[in-house]
């Protein structure tokens, strides 16, 4: 039992914090918010040079063989600067799914390229009618003589506009009809009949909706061997939620620091706001919730490779708890900044919006408390 950072982990944290503090400031974020890509390819290249894109990829595919804890360390630093690069889409979800269910050839063709920054991926799974139910997929993949034909509508595809290839989930229909299995398919964005409409994402970065109207794909477009992919998708999403939880911790920490400073400087009634007990106690509650969130994000990361129920309960528990804390810390940060907190002139609002996006992504607190309950007690 040891929850102290190793030397390598400490170095990773220091280099990530230094990079974010040096490269990300308000000007950069404002520029990125107006940018059609939503992030900087130059920064992505630096991520590759720093080894961050290779971090969770196995060594045999030119990766560094890191785990969910290392990703969490990186993500917490990303949160402090509201980094908008497509790390979750490409490295956590994309590379994770390829590694988990790809064939050797599929891995060989993609993982080294993700590691060196030359390939970006995205996962198109959510559908409007499914809400947050990961097992509900209406998009279809019909077996054809040449391969597969995909049809359906996907929403909230994180960074799909920037991806070279999109991993699309679809209900497999073989020659006998609906199989009851969900498959994953690699769809190059340039494929005809793939229509991507992207939009600005709340709190930074971009997302898109995708229309697949009879997309013809070759045989080897299927990721893996055709077994039902729902449990793999759950695994990948649980991992992404742990990573996003760590990012939320970084965002909350920055909001806490900023708000604390402001209450020390801002004077009303002839004294700083922080001289009022009601304000001090609010800040104490915020600090406590940041700390609890840090515990939960770490817990989810440490259990990211545990048995499915234990892993899923840790991920849902973390998502629900951190989401609840994030709303509190975000809302109170604005409250304590007074009128200025509601304006675009301060960055408090940007950090808050990213927290709202976090709480919503893959399902909010209510959804995850209920998933946690349905998964049943482990003890």
């Amino acid at each position, binding site marked *: *039992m*040891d*929850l*102290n*950072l*190793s030397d390598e*982990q400490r170095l990773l944290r220091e280099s990530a914090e230094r990079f974010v503090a040096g490269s990300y400031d308000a000007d950069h974020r404002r520029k990125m918010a107006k940018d059609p890509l939503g992030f900087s390819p130059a920064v992505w290249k630096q991520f590759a040079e720093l080894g961050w894109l290779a971090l969770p990829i196995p060594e045999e595919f030119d990766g560094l063989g890191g785990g969910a*804890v290392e990703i969490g360390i990186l993500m917490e630093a990303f949160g402090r600067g509201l980094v908008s690069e497509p790390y979750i889409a490409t490295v956590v979800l994309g590379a994770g799914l390829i590694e988990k269910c790809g064939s050797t050839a599929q891995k060989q063709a993609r993982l080294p390229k993700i590691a060196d920054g030359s390939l970006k991926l995205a996962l198109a799974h959510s559908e409007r009618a499914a809400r947050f139910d990961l097992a509900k997929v209406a998009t279809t993949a019909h077996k054809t003589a040449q391969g597969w034909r995909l049809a359906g509508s996907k929403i909230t595809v994180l960074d799909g506009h920037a991806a070279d290839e999109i991993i699309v989930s679809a209900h497999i229909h073989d020659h006998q009809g609906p199989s009851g299995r969900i498959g994953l398919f690699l769809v190059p964005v340039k494929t005809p009949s793939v229509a991507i409409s992207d939009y600005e994402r709340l709190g930074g970065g971009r997302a898109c909706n995708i229309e697949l109207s009879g997309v013809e794909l070759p045989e080897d477009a299927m990721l893996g061997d055709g077994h039902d992919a729902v449990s793999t998708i759950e695994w990948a999403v649980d991992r992404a939620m742990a990573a996003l939880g760590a990012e939320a911790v970084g965002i909350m920490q920055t909001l806490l620091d900023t708000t*604390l400073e402001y*209450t*020390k400087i801002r004077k009303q009634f002839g004294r700083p706001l*922080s001289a009022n*007990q009601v304000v*001090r*106690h609010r*800040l*104490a*509650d915020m*600090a*406590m919730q940041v*700390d*609890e*969130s840090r*515990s*939960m994000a*770490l*817990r989810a990361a*440490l*259990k990211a490779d545990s048995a499915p129920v234990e892993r899923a309960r*840790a991920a849902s*528990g973390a998502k*629900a*708890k951190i989401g609840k804390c994030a709303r509190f810390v975000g809302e109170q940060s604005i409250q304590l900044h007074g009128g200025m907190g509601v304006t675009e002139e301060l960055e408090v609002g940007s950090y808050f919006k990213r927290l709202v996006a976090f709480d919503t992504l893959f399902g909010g607190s*209510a959804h995850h*408390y*209920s998933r*946690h*309950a*349905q998964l049943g*007690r482990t*003890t």
Partner: protein
Amino acid sequence: MDLSFNTDERAFQDEVRGFIAKNLTEEMKRATALTPSVFSDPDIGMAWQRTLHKQGWGAPGWPVDHGGPDWTPAQRWIFETESARAGVPNVNVMGVKMVGPVIIGFGSPEQQNFYLPRILSGEDYWCQGYSEPGSGSDLSSLKTRAVRDGDDYIVNGTKIWTTHAHHANRMFALVRTSDGPRQQDGISFMLIDMTTPGITTRPILTIGGDHEVNQVFFDDVRVPVANRVGEEGKGWTYGKYLLEFERGSGIASAKLREGLKAIAELAESDLTGRAIDSPDIATRISEVEVDIDALEMTELRVLSALQTGQNPGAVSSILKLRNSEIRQAVTRLGVDVIGHDALAVEPMRPLYKLNHEPATPEDMLTMVPEYLNGRAYTIFGGTSEIQRDIIAKMMLGI
């Protein structure tokens, strides 16, 4: 980073489990489960203390030369966790976890040689004389006065919320020995024999129907100067040291988990008409469970820091605050889960020695009194408001 225990630690875990399985009687277990107050009655608690002492485990946190078992922080974690899982009684916390560390830290060799073995063996039973009717959160305004008279102090005044004063043969107390510009400076830390003439004890019933706390009156009570711990006027420092132990013994999650488990089992039983089938109840159980997970992780993070000799800082206030709030959430859930049965009052104590058939199933008997008495968790040992003051000051610098 690693959440699992190593081979040695797992072996120790087996040893603790084996020891508890062999020594914890069904009677002790049942009495503990049916205790709705904060502390076990001494006949139950001290029996367990004697059992632990025979094994050399009577005071897990003490240094080895005073009879501690010399455990690592991880071993202490395992011991406390396994104890909670098995449902062992509370031992005399005021002795082992409160006054013991103060006597070890600041007491004279004579005091150490006399008192410490008696705490370990269970011969002495201690109570804590801190709060007074006029001094709650503002503890250092306390007025119980000790005036020097030769080799004695003469003590006059009153203490309140004194847990188990009616069972204790000794009290450690903060008393005023002088008045200065800073009220903290005139306080001394004294060890008082409860059989001394002039001490009277008045019971106070809590809203759950339990007699656990008391008011104690001192009327010209002679306390030998030799019973003062450390220097005169330095009692506040020693008392604060003790409060850190009281708040941050640091391993509370296992007990909370057991409490929640008992409630979840009731919710899954026909006795409650399967309360768990209500999505609201099921979700609330998850919500509390997740809060316990977070507290447990924080405890383990503190433990890891301690293992490498780092100082965890103001986190003892966070642990105290969250433990008390979650405990209240658990007991609130307990009342809601038992439904109709929350209306039945069982006035007899102890609940494990009723001489009649209670109106509700035995597993439910403690739920309402635990909830009611449990309101005290966010009040004693420094209220939640005081803890938030400490967090703001120590962690945030405001």
